[in-house]
């Protein structure tokens, strides 16, 4: 590779088209945080319609444009569907994954293995910019005729294939752009995952064996394999759906469709709507573990650091994560129990689903056991990390009734599912991501975040997350379908409308509770208290580099002498033994 960035690069080279993993990591993090907030805002709009069906959206109702609202500012049903589909897509593919993998992975992982950069720095830059392109495509789709994609984040055909097409026969409509955007996002993730795996396997410093890797790095490694092998099928599926839309092929279109009384014989027929679901869930189930594994990694780091003792059962944790990753490829059809599955397949998939819950139980148990005989410091990152445990437990446990095909008959596609997975991704993963931000902020900026604002952020966030998602479990048990513009249409929905109103208020309050964080984030970055190299007295390698680390990361290449979590070693002078200090230096 060219050496043109050895001498002082210009501003653009340094901050925009940078190949430095740290700059790219920060770019990823900030971009994805903005997307997270945007995706959340879409949901705050939807929650108005859910709480007060048919009422004009206050304040912004008039601004949302003809594809989302009617003349009075009431959210249209198709607008509701578009916001829902885009909320799901944005949160998963533009928010959490880029933040957890692109942001934290890129910034922290090379530091933790003592590498000067990622194995392929320019590829890394390419990943980021392809991701940005995908994001721009998704945003642009709000403005094309017919508005954004509105067939759910799952985009099930035939609905998604016929969606928007007859809306003035535009090829450039929301669903097409959604597909193109997805292809870009998938490509970005693929490039990234290759880079991550090579970096982790090849660029570890001397002494850093695989079983001395911080848990976070293991989580990233497994995550990368999930991305590498699960994403391509969706890419293929995306191409097939694009062909169905553009060339009237019928990969997903069965023979004899009649839409609104019109026989759709432009499609040759003979396709299978379920094919899409297989290809989609082959990606999307591993994808949900992509959402949780980096979070578990972050939690592991923070818990070890703030309990001041080694993570309980490090090897068990590693094996569990690897097993979890493997199993996540063989459970996908538990999203398809009600597509007409027979007994053999359903037994296979409910069994694998029960099996996959075991490593999660083991991981959570290990984290909980790490608290025993600890000396727990309740700083802000730790608060977020601790709250993750019971929240993930609720989310994970509510996965079990969904995983048994018999109980899934009642719960499938109800708010119970929504409640289940939000407990894992929102009070779960999002809390973990917040924890990570508070934890590594001093490393990235050289400054600490305000503790007071941190508390003002943490407590209401934890409270309102539960106010939002707790009621959903109840609503779902009562039998209310998801994706309903107005649940009071149904007897069962009308009965529990009160819970829905409560959930909406929770969402808006949660929105308000993010203000302290946003202020904290920007204020502390420029004017926070200066931080030392290793403010948390941590052991892993990233804390051996200056804060913020310079280009090339380490003044001299570190050597690793021990495992990642040597806290409170009996007889040692200090209660932590950094990985890079030899025994001689420590005594």
């Amino acid at each position, binding site marked *: 590779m060219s050496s043109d960035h050895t001498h002082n690069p210009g501003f653009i080279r340094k901050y925009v088209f940078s190949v430095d993993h740290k700059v790219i990591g920060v770019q990823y993090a900030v971009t994805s945080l903005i997307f997270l907030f945007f995706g959340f805002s879409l949901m705050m709009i939807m929650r108005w319609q859910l709480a007060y069906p048919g009422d004009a959206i206050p304040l912004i109702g008039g601004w949302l444009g003809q594809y989302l609202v009617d003349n009075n500012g009431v959210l249209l049903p198709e607008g509701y569907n578009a916001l829902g589909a885009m909320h799901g897509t944005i949160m998963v593919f533009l928010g959490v994954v880029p933040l957890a993998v692109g942001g934290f992975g890129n910034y922290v992982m090379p530091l933790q293995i003592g590498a000067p950069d990622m194995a392929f720095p320019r590829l890394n830059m390419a990943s980021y910019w392809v991701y940005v392109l995908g994001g721009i495509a998704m945003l642009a789709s709000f403005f094309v005729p017919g508005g954004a994609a509105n067939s759910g984040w799952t985009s099930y055909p035939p609905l998604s294939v016929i969606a928007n097409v007859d809306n003035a026969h535009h090829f450039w409509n929301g669903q097409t752009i959604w597909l193109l955007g997805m292809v870009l996002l998938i490509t970005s993730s693929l490039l990234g995952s290759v880079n991550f795996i090579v970096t982790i396997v090849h660029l570890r410093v001397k002494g850093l064996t695989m079983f001395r890797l911080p848990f976070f790095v293991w989580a990233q490694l497994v995550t990368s394999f999930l991305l590498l*092998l699960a994403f391509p099928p969706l890419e293929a599926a995306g191409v097939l759906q694009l062909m169905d839309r553009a060339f009237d092929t019928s990969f997903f279109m069965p023979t004899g469709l009649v839409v609104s009384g019109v026989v759709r014989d432009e499609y040759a027929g003979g396709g299978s709507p*379920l094919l899409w679901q*297989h290809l989609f869930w082959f990606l999307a189930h591993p994808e949900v573990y992509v959402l949780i594994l980096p979070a578990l990694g972050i939690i592991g780091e923070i818990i070890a650091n703030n309990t001041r003792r080694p993570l309980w059962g490090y090897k068990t944790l590693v094996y569990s994560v690897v097993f979890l990753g*493997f199993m996540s490829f063989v459970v996908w059809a538990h999203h398809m129990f009600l*597509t*007409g599955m027979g007994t053999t397949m359903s037994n296979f998939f409910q069994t694998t689903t029960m099996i996959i819950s075991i490593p999660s139980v083991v991981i959570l148990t290990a984290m909980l056991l790490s608290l025993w005989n600890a000396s727990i410091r309740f700083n802000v990152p730790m608060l977020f990390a601790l709250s993750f445990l019971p929240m993930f437990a609720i989310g994970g446990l509510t996965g079990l009734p969904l995983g048994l095909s018999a109980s899934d008959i009642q719960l499938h596609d109800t708010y119970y599912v929504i409640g289940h997975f939000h407990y894992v991704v929102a009070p779960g993963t999002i809390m973990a991501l917040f924890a990570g931000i508070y934890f590594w902020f001093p490393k990235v900026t050289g400054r600490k975040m305000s503790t007071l604002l941190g508390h003002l952020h943490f407590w209401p966030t934890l409270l309102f997350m539960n106010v939002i998602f707790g009621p959903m479990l109840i609503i779902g048990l009562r039998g209310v379908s998801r994706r309903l513009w107005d649940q009071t249409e149904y007897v069962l929905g009308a009965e529990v409308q009160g819970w829905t109103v409560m959930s909406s208020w929770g969402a808006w309050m949660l929105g308000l509770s993010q203000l302290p964080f946003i202020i904290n984030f920007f204020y502390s970055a420029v004017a926070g208290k200066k931080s030392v190299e290793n403010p948390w007295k941590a052991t892993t390698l990233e804390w051996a580099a200056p804060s913020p680390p310079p280009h090339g990361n380490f003044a001299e290449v570190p050597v690793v002498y021990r495992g990642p979590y040597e806290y409170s070693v009996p007889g040692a002078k200090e209660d932590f033994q950094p990985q890079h200090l030899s025994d001689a230096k420590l005594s």
Partner: protein
Amino acid sequence: MASSIEEVRKSVRLYLMVFGALGVLTIVTVLASSLNVSVAVGVFVALAIASVKGTLVATYFMHLLGERSTLYWVLILAAFFFLLLILIPVMMHSETVHLIDQVT
């Protein structure tokens, strides 16, 4: 891995042999397909030959033979998921169709 100059020189002859084998196998596939056998046998023969050819390409041209086990594990993983992805949808579909036939 063929890395030393000597080894590379030796393998050049090997490449030409593999090339010959691939050519012959291509002709065999075409001929076999014109035989009058049942569809199942035809599919089996064609895919078997293709697999042999694929293996030749992978082992010799791509030097898979000389690689370490790390790579094998990655590829075995991919191959396993590949099979799963191919088999499960078909099996599930068959089962559903069976279910429908049972009742109607």
